[in-house]
């Protein structure tokens, strides 16, 4: 049984078929990438998997359980977390607090204990803050821990989102263009981080336009165009697919991508 099973999901927005009849699956510890031209439906697919939108057709299974259209906070309990292409930062909170919210499910206790400020409540808070600090170190933001998140640069915010998503200790992590706005060196750091997370057993679904990263890191690639799945396979299989080259890579990028896919 795969960790995530997507069968024939579709959704449209006032006539625009954003995602149509897409199926694929991911196993534990696997890295699956979704690529495709702008507007192909990648983010929309993510939104359906993570409970932001409810699919109009099809079904989604997480660890065997049917979770189609389940609200996001319940999916979070089942081990799914994500980052956003359009950043969703708690900008009035500090960087540390942003990550600490990721521990919400762990630290959430009785309301009464919170209102009365009981020691148990404070201990839980403290623990999640310590763990958050660890995560900030992992993404290289420990120096910014006390800053207001709104004051960070774009690239830093991207990494903050990853740290927050990791705080949930997810079984399945959805990353929407994590390397956008990062230069080649920074991208490599993120790539390493992702690989490391996958090694610990977390399955990763990745959307990214940086072909170098995608080709090197993915076990499996799903290609979307106009909402439909047009190809699927290993990196090497996908880069040689003519429709993929035509619709997405273009000639120049194909060359580069092929290089990375093969190594």
């Amino acid at each position, binding site marked *: 049984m795969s960790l995530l099973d997507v069968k024939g999901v579709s959704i449209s*927005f006032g006539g625009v078929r954003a995602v149509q009849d897409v199926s694929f699956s991911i196993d534990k510890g696997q890295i699956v990438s979704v690529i495709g031209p702008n507007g192909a439906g990648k*983010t929309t697919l993510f*939104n359906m998997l993570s409970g*932001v939108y409810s699919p109009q057709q099809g079904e989604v299974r997480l660890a065997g359980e049917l979770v189609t259209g389940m609200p996001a906070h319940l999916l979070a309990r089942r081990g799914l977390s994500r980052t*956003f*292409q*359009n950043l*969703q930062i708690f900008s009035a909170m500090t960087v540390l607090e942003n990550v600490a919210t990721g521990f919400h499910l762990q630290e959430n206790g009785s309301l009464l204990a919170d209102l009365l400020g009981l020691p148990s409540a404070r201990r839980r808070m403290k623990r999640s803050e310590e763990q958050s600090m660890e995560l900030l170190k992992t993404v290289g933001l420990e120096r910014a821990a006390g800053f207001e998140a709104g004051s960070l640069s774009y690239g830093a915010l991207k990494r903050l989102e990853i740290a927050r998503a990791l705080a949930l200790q997810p079984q399945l992590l959805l990353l929407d263009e994590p390397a956008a706005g990062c230069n080649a060196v920074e991208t490599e750091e993120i790539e390493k981080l992702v690989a490391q997370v996958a090694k610990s057993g977390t399955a990763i679904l990745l959307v990214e336009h940086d072909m170098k990263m995608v080709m090197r890191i993915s076990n499996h690639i799903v290609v979307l165009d106009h909402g439909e799945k047009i190809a699927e396979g290993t990196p090497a299989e996908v880069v040689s697919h003519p429709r993929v080259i035509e619709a997405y890579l273009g000639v120049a990028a194909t060359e580069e991508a092929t290089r990375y896919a093969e190594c």
Partner: protein
Amino acid sequence: MSEFMQFLLSGLTVGAVYALVALGFTIIYNASDVANFAQGEFVMLGGMITAAAYAAGAPLLLAATLAIVLTAAIGILLNKLAIEPARGAPVASLIIITIGASIFIRGLTQILLDKELHRFPAFSGDDPIHVLGATILPQSLWVIAGALLVFVALWLFFTRTLTGRAVLATANNRIAALLVGINTRYIMALSFALSAAIGALAGILITPITLTSYDIGMTMALKGFAAAMLGGMGNPKGALAGGLVLGLLEALTAGYLSSQYKDAAAFVVILAVLFFMPQGMFGRKVAERV
């Protein structure tokens, strides 16, 4: 039948009053996302200044023009002195500023003018017009026509003119507006002037029916705000529809159910509508992509 007709006409009259106030809200809201609670004071000023000038001997038309010009100027001042310096403040602060402004304007009016009730003659006399066994005053027709006219003008402004779109752009993304070359300060000043002028016009049209005094602003603002929200904030169509629906609801409830709870009924309906249409009747649901 004639009974129903009378309720309907009453509802239309009152609804047009609300619609006029609600329409005044739309421009400032569209330019800055601020619900300007001083909007009711513009309505008050329109009526009060006209009444004062008329009582001082000015012909009605002149008095009304004076009121509109003065009120528009006050709108610009409000923007320049209170809203602009507070740019970037959270919305709640802006609301408090507009409430502060409304208290200030009310206080000033009560001293410069007076605390009495006022009225001036209806534009086309007081002889009721008979419609299917019911009656309506000619002034009500003026109010209804005024609401329709302002609606059409605003609708054209926002959909057909570049300036109208610049107003929308300013509220939607101020930085982007600056980056395409929109003078956002000018746009804000213009919006306040227009909103104030519409408010004043509303005040002038309705005073022969509702009477006016220095303290009607808050009620007007509330009803207009409720109407605008019912219709969908920022959309002229919504303001017109919201106002008329609110007026009709009140009149029909007062007529058929209970005059004691007519305001309550209106609010229950607003709550019910918002339950099913959280953006009001014509509000645009803006897709916030993530």
